[in-house]
């Protein structure tokens, strides 16, 4: 296994504001964040010779808006699982010398255009079955029947993340969330309630990667990408997955920890793709933090809260910061490892793992 540690670093990051910005399109929001990420890194625009675009409709328009001619240019589809793929590709491009400084750029105007995530498309739409939330509802109903999970136990995910968001001035949700609020909220697709769903917003996130030698000359303390792995469950993608992507997650776990040269107990925290609250349970089990069916108990007692053994989504995540399709979780990992998180800083953070569990499962380990 190649030890990736210290080879590739994140040197510039920026989150655009998250919310409702109909006055800017997604490219403009991305460009504003791009400029902020260059400033963060201490780089000039024309040093960027690698560009990976995500969600934005056209990589051509993205490069035109930024006014750059990168040697390496890759567009990725709008699926949220592509954020991990983008980072994996950035690492590969740098390791093989395709580029010196790779910008990963993401823009989202889902709120302004009223992105519904469901309705007309897909094999099951005429049956009345569409939307990622309903796919997760099917997954979770089976899970909660099998392991007799109460809604109060699942609520711990949303309540914990809301408390984290309240320590993050960039988070969209700042109001306290009580168990009563959670339980009394309407079902969207039952068994999932309103607060089990992520927040659709406008926003942008940019990350700039480079090699370890180049990283040393830049403004910020480098945060290293120590491990990166993807595995898929795509062959039966139109039918609900049978195993909660556990095989793909286990495959990632076999690779990503040895690649980083660390194990689970060395992690200071986790950033888990929380498009829907139960996905955090599957991810904790899939990567071996607890056994199958144990996650609803594992997360109780403050374990995944700041100050607990294994803080999860310290920014508030997709449930309470904003749904930025994994990106703002990755920049949060970098901020935690730069020790720039203020009131929500994980004390002495040394290593953070990003996990996205979907038809493409991805995981990244960051170290300082």
């Amino acid at each position, binding site marked *: 296994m190649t030890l990736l540690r210290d080879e590739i670093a994140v040197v510039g990051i920026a989150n655009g504001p998250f919310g409702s910005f109909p006055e800017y399109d997604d490219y403009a929001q991305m460009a504003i964040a791009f400029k902020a990420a260059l400033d963060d890194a201490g780089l000039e625009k024309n040093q960027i010779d690698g560009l990976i675009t995500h969600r934005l409709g056209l990589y051509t328009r993205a490069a035109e808006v930024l006014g750059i001619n990168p040697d390496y240019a890759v567009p990725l589809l709008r699926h949220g699982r592509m954020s991990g793929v983008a980072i994996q590709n950035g690492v590969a491009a740098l390791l093989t010398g395709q580029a010196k400084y790779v910008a990963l750029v993401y823009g989202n105007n889902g709120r302004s255009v009223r992105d*519904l*995530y*469901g*309705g*007309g498309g897909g*094999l*099951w*739409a*005429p*049956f*009345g*079955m*569409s*939307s990622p939330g*309903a796919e997760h*509802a*099917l*997954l979770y*109903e*089976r899970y909660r*029947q*099998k392991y007799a999970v109460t809604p109060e136990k699942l609520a711990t995910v949303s309540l914990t993340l809301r408390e984290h968001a309240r320590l993050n001035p960039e988070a969209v949700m700042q109001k306290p969330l009580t168990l009563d609020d959670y339980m009394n909220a*309407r*079902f*969207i*697709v*039952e*068994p*999932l309630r309103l607060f089990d769903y992520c927040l659709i917003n406008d926003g942008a996130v940019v990350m700039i990667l480079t090699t370890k030698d180049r990283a040393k000359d830049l403004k910020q303390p480098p945060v290293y990408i120590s491990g990166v792995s993807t595995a898929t469950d795509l*062959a039966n993608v*139109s*039918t*609900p997955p*049978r195993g909660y992507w556990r095989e793909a997650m286990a495959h990632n776990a076999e690779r990503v920890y040895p690649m980083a040269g660390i194990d689970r107990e060395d992690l200071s925290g986790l950033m888990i793709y929380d498009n829907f609250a139960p996905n955090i349970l599957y991810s904790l089990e899939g990567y071996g933090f607890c056994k199958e069916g144990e996650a609803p108990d594992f997360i109780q007692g403050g374990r995944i809260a700041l100050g607990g053994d294994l803080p999860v989504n310290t920014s508030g995540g997709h449930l309470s910061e904003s749904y930025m399709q994994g990106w703002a979780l990755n920049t949060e990992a970098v901020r935690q490892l730069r020790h720039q998180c203020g009131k929500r800083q994980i004390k002495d953070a040394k290593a953070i793992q990003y996990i996205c569990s979907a038809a493409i499962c991805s995981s990244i380990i960051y170290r300082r």
Partner: protein
Amino acid sequence: MSVAPLLPTITDENRPFWDAARAGRFRMQRCSHCATLRPSPSDICPHCLSEEFAWVDLSGRGAVSSWCVYHRAFHPAFKERVPYTILQVDLDEGVRFVAPLAGGGVRPLKLGMRVRVVFEEAAEDVVLPVFALEEDVV
């Protein structure tokens, strides 16, 4: 005022499925080489990549392996139907299929409940295979 139903997009690949449903039959593609059934229609077998296949009648029987209840319509066509239940069914032939609970609405359900396919008219000339609980079928 009634809203237009959400009609399936009929393609050359899936037309036999919808034609069969209209005739009260629940059919699926089966590879003629390795016998793999495919719920998502395709010209090619995803198991052995053979191009040879036939549309075969299925028993329409299976067991509930999960369900969910829509309280919100993601498409206007379903606005008057919420709340409605979607069943995930593991068919006796070994493949998974997703379709609404017959008659709509919400019922107490359990994993493993036996169901069978019945047919409901969604629009003129469009018939949907849906799942009825065995206990309801005389």
